[in-house]
């Protein structure tokens, strides 16, 4: 398909409602030929797998890490590499890794050699750590309580061996969301980080009446902490009901909540989306607060590593983090990770009863 970028753009030429181009335009010939007719696959190394079709045809996939935020320079380099070894074909994964699709076996090792020479991080396939699903953070979002790209960089620098070589009992899915909107996959990941506030929003009464809609603002509050203030044509906040979620700011610019000193992150654990063995699970609170400490967030990296290491040491083969915790029990989880259990860990919102322990089955971890 020849692409055109005219020097002078006639906007009347725009077509609407055409949708994306058909996916078949982008599939390597061997995939087109064997589409829906694959027999099996083998993971050859942490970053290389081969899919074998019923016809006997094969396609090799080399997976490399991507920071998701990519410059056009890097994208052009990827295109050049794909031309050299993959007849121009490559794809991205649902965790934002990059996959080179090789139809000619003799080109697999030369591709890997070039990728290594260019310092690409090869891996992410099988029972190990893969890329971190994340969000915009301070790079592009108005409601971010933490940066996202930096946390990803810090976490995967620390866990790089588990991407490229070492194995874990099962996949460990990491995710970062820069606020409690939880864009992405934080609520269903093995270990995930979410940006949180710990102080109430400021009310800019003068701006409220010009910029905000009262009913929408009130309806945005999960704890009904917002009530009208007719005298000021603004709102009042029942401070004791506010848990700093920031949703009112999402609908009303006059309620800024960002706070350099008090914003930070929480760590949640034990979520999964796959149905293998046990049904999908939500992640649950492990660490309620750690401070923002750019550029390396050492407290966060260290805390994730403690949880990660305890899982790797304690889990049985094929157990995801949530399955491991279900087996050992939460009292044991807090014991082996050394994370202090606090007021914030006990749910006091919608699901309290479901989360309380209605049994005498208890492990004595404090002897």
């Amino acid at each position: 398909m020849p692409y055109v970028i005219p020097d002078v753009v006639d906007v009347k030429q725009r077509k609407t409602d055409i949708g994306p181009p058909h996916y078949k335009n982008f599939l390597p010939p061997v995939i087109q030929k064997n589409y829906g007719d694959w027999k099996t696959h083998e993971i050859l190394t942490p970053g290389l797998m081969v899919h074998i079709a019923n016809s006997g045809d094969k396609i090799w996939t080399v997976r490399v890490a991507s920071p998701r935020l990519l410059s056009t320079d890097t994208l052009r380099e990827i295109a050049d590499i794909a031309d050299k070894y993959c007849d121009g074909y490559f794809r991205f994964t649902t965790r934002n890794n990059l996959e080179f699709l090789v139809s000619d076996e003799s080109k697999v090792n030369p591709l890997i050699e070039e990728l290594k020479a260019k310092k690409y991080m090869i891996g992410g396939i099988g029972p190990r750590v893969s890329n971190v699903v994340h969000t915009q953070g301070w790079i592009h979002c108005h409601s971010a309580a933490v940066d996202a790209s930096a946390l990803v960089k810090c976490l995967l620098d620390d866990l790089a061996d588990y991407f490229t070589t070492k194995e874990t009992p099962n996949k460990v899915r990491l995710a970062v969301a820069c606020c409690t909107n939880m864009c992405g996959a934080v609520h269903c990941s093995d270990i995930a980080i979410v940006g949180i506030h710990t102080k109430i929003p400021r009310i800019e009464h003068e701006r409220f009446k010009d910029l905000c809609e009262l009913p929408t603002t009130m309806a945005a509050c999960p704890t009904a902490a917002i009530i009208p203030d007719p005298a000021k044509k603004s709102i009042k906040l029942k401070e004791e009901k506010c848990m700093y979620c920031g949703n009112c700011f999402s609908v009303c610019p006059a309620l800024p909540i960002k706070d350099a000193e008090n914003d930070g992150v929480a760590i949640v654990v034990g979520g999964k989306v796959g149905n293998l063995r046990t049904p999908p699970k939500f992640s649950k609170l492990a660490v309620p607060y750690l401070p923002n400490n750019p550029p390396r967030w050492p407290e966060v990296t260290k805390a994730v590593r403690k949880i990660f290491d305890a899982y790797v040491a304690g889990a049985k083969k094929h157990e995801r983090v949530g399955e491991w915790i279900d087996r050992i029990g939460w009292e044991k989880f807090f014991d082996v990770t050394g994370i202090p259990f606090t007021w914030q860990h006990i749910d006091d919102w919608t699901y309290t009863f479901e989360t309380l322990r209605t049994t005498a089955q208890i492990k004595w971890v404090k002897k």
Partner: protein
Amino acid sequence: MTKKYDTPLLDELEKGPFPSFVTEMKKAAAKNAMAADELGLLEKSFRDKVTYWKHGGIVGVRGYGGGVIGRYSELADEFPNVAHFHTVRVNQPAGLFYTSETMRFFCDLWDKYGSGLTNFHGSTGDIILLGTVTDNLEPLATILSMNGFDLGGSGSAMRTPSCCVGPARCEWSMIDTLDITYDLTQEFQDELHRPAFPYKYKIKVVGCPIDCNAAIARADCSIIGTWKGPIEIDQDRVRDYAKKGMNIQEEIVNLCPGKCITWDGNNLTINNDDCRHCMHCIAKLAGALKPTPPFGATILIGAKAPFVIGATLSWVVVPFMEMKPPYQEIKDLHRKWWEWWSEYGKNRERIGELILRRGMREFLEISELEPAPEMVKEPRRDPFFFWKEGDLEGKPWEKWLK
């Protein structure tokens, strides 16, 4: 271009093995004034520990109500080239496959009209072109359309559907995830481009219950491939796994949630009637076990992040649906759902929240679906149930007690 800002904090993030987003920003900043100011602004955020993007921003292109996320810097005086820094969402090809030619087109386009910074991809699936000015939006949309690309979704609309790699490169895909995604995206172009709903609505399609696109957690409608036939067993290959050191009893039999597998050291047997279709044995014994037809999908509804009522995972609405083009049944259901949601949904109420507010009965009735045990984890535990005129008229117990 000479170096515009010192970035001592961000420079730290160029160290270490994982590919650095700072390096990416610096590459773009070397030739693009917008990217250079973006880098300077981010360094300031790192120093001050807060975001410097103004609230909101409403920009777009004629004919559409979404597709562009407007963004303005709070520090336009200090960083004038990111005074506007809008994101353009471009609908990705299903399965995220590309050719080098296509990628070079995006690079040429974005070097000319934007910051040179992208995300491959946004969490919903779109190609994210990160940072441009309002005046460039109309030409961008025009050039994209001339080359066969369209904008993705944003706002209270159907968002860009996405899928796993599916039958393109996976032996387990029981439905054509790419085709379903492409077909539904085309069918609902109007709903995608012109927000007409109470809030956002997402569709994700995956080929099997392993759910490689997190459909059950990240889509209002989760379409998950599954099967009804028995699992076909290649005993020789199972024995190969055992020989290579897999403890079949521990790793397969004991972990089966249906407790329906046995292994006598030589042969594996599966009581398919008790199989829960979780994929564990099939995934761990790749090449030895194979699901067999009939193939179709489980349709689930309602997943969302915490705001406002708490996070939800999608729950079963149709336990098994055949998924053959033109996918009429799922399209018809969507039209019924959207009509009901548009009528009764409150402002910014996701469809899952509406169902929980008004009840599954109403939702199933407008869907013209009958209740089934596959829809619940367990029946209710309280005695506070509603009756409608007519519920007891047919004396449903008589048939059962016969």
